[in-house]
């Protein structure tokens, strides 16, 4: 007993205790739910078997049921569009802004910091604001588009099945720009100035310098930001809940929202689990690639 107390006070027991507490918590509330999720996706879980510990085992039936749903194709394709379009625009706008604010002018870093206001706000509130901006009859976006002559008529952003998904994507791009911009700014700041000066002396123009210096030196950063973008985009739920709730007719529904709808709206919990398992696997693979690439970078 004395020995245990001493090792906790003064030895490696102290480390093990501190590490163990947090890890134990994460195992109970994070790792175990994942395993439980996999088990549930192989069972029938609905309102009747919810509290039971002995549920019927159905094998891969739930996975089969998901893919045989008529909307499955639409939803997975929507998810792909949601992720790809969000990232392409977040990244290019964020990169553009990072390059712009990298220049030397008064208040540059202060203004850049203001952009993070969009990132710190609860996504549900951002969704509420965008819902009002997108409003069909009185929305300011429609006013801007029609008065600038970009659109002939009002666009019913959230109730037209052809555009609802794009409305959600636009709001998500707005949310993601600050994070992309700040992370890329850090990368840009670490490129030594004299590399550019040397290139300029050799007669390289602005685009040449960007292509042959900035892009190659930012490769690791861009990789990190893209993987984080995939991860954050797949976490996006609040925005969809606020804007369209996946509608109209699943036209703006994505996998992470679909999974929640199964579990909490139609109570087909095992189907929700199955979608969730598939998406978690995908997210973890992306994250593993990201972590490996940043680790790799450290060994230089």
């Amino acid at each position, binding site marked *: 007993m004395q020995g245990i107390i001493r090792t906790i006070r003064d030895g490696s027991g102290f480390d093990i205790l501190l590490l163990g507490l947090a890890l134990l918590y994460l195992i109970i509330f994070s790792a175990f739910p994942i395993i439980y999720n996999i088990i549930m996706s192989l069972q029938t879980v609905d309102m009747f078997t919810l509290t039971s510990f002995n549920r019927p085992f159905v094998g891969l039936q739930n996975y089969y049921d998901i893919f045989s749903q008529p909307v499955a194709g639409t939803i997975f394709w929507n998810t792909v569009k949601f992720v790809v379009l969000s990232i392409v625009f977040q990244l290019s706008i964020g990169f553009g802004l990072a390059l712009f604010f990298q220049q030397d002018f008064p208040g540059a870093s202060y203004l850049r910091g203001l952009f993070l206001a969009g990132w710190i706000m609860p996504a549900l509130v951002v969704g509420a604001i965008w819902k009002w901006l997108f409003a069909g009859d009185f929305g*300011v976006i429609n006013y801007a588009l029609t008065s600038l002559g970009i659109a002939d008529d009002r666009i019913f952003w959230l109730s037209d099945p052809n555009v609802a998904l794009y409305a959600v994507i636009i709001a998500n791009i707005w949310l993601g720009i600050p994070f992309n911009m700040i992370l890329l700014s850090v990368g840009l700041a670490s490129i030594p100035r004299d590399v550019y000066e040397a290139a300029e002396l050799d007669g390289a123009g602005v685009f040449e310098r960007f292509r042959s210096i900035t892009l190659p030196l930012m490769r690791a950063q861009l990789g990190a930001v893209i993987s984080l973008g995939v991860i954050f985009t797949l976490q996006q739920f609040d925005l969809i809940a606020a804007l369209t709730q996946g509608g109209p007719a699943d036209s703006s529904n994505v996998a992470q929202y679909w999974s929640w709808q199964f579990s909490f709206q139609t109570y087909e919990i095992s189907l929700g689990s199955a979608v969730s398992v598939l998406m978690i696997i995908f997210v973890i693979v992306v994250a593993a690639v990201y972590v490996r690439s940043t680790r790799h970078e450290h060994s230089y």
Partner: protein
Amino acid sequence: MKRYILLIIGLAMTAIYLFPLYWMYLTALKSSTEIFQYPPTFWPADTQWNFLEVWKSRGMGRYIWNSLLIAVGVTILATTLGTGCAYVLSRVRNVWIEIALFAILMMQVLPSSLMVTPIFVMFNQIGLLASPRIAVILAQTAKVLPLYIVLCRATFVQVPRELEEAALVDGSSRIGAFFHIMLPLARNGILVTSVLIFLQSFGEYVYARSLIAKNELQTATVGLQTFMGPNANDWNGIMTYAAIYVTPILIVFMLLQRRIVSGLTAGALK
């Protein structure tokens, strides 16, 4: 001269980006007929201060209280569990620590909307849903704890090892060195990271929506979502609600802006 042209372009871009925020405050201040004017006005003709009314009629006090309670609970639990763990991860280097760190990084990315299904069933079976706010605190802590550990670890890495070693040579115990040397030196980073996870939990939606059944225990996000309902027309009120809700968040953010930015970037890229 060029610097001032850049400044003007920079200001213009910031203004365009922050327009949605401006529109929220503007709509909150307009009268309920003015918001439906077309073309819309860009400055309130007849400023209305209906903040108190919306606060009372929507029962915002209760919602905000629940959100605060959950955010405080999550922050206390995550800092208690996470700080020591972050310290160990920053000091010890061996293969087990590498594995633990990798596992923590993996858990950082799990989306709440996907984790909520097994958590709901599990909490239901062990009866935790009877105290739903605690259930949300437990679930949300599991969500933010990895992020807290990763960001805090970056702070501890910056504290010179020699300071701790000197204290140990002087006869301090490990516990003593941790509380008297390491914690005070890492104070800033711990503070900023706690603020960050506090703000994140203050705006939490998925777990509150899915685990809390009773309206009087709901959070401010769910209150806003209910307000928005399927046929929402009271955009004036909704934007007032939103403005009341996010203004404190924005103020805290403005005060700590620089530190949050540096803490965040250190953690995400190292």
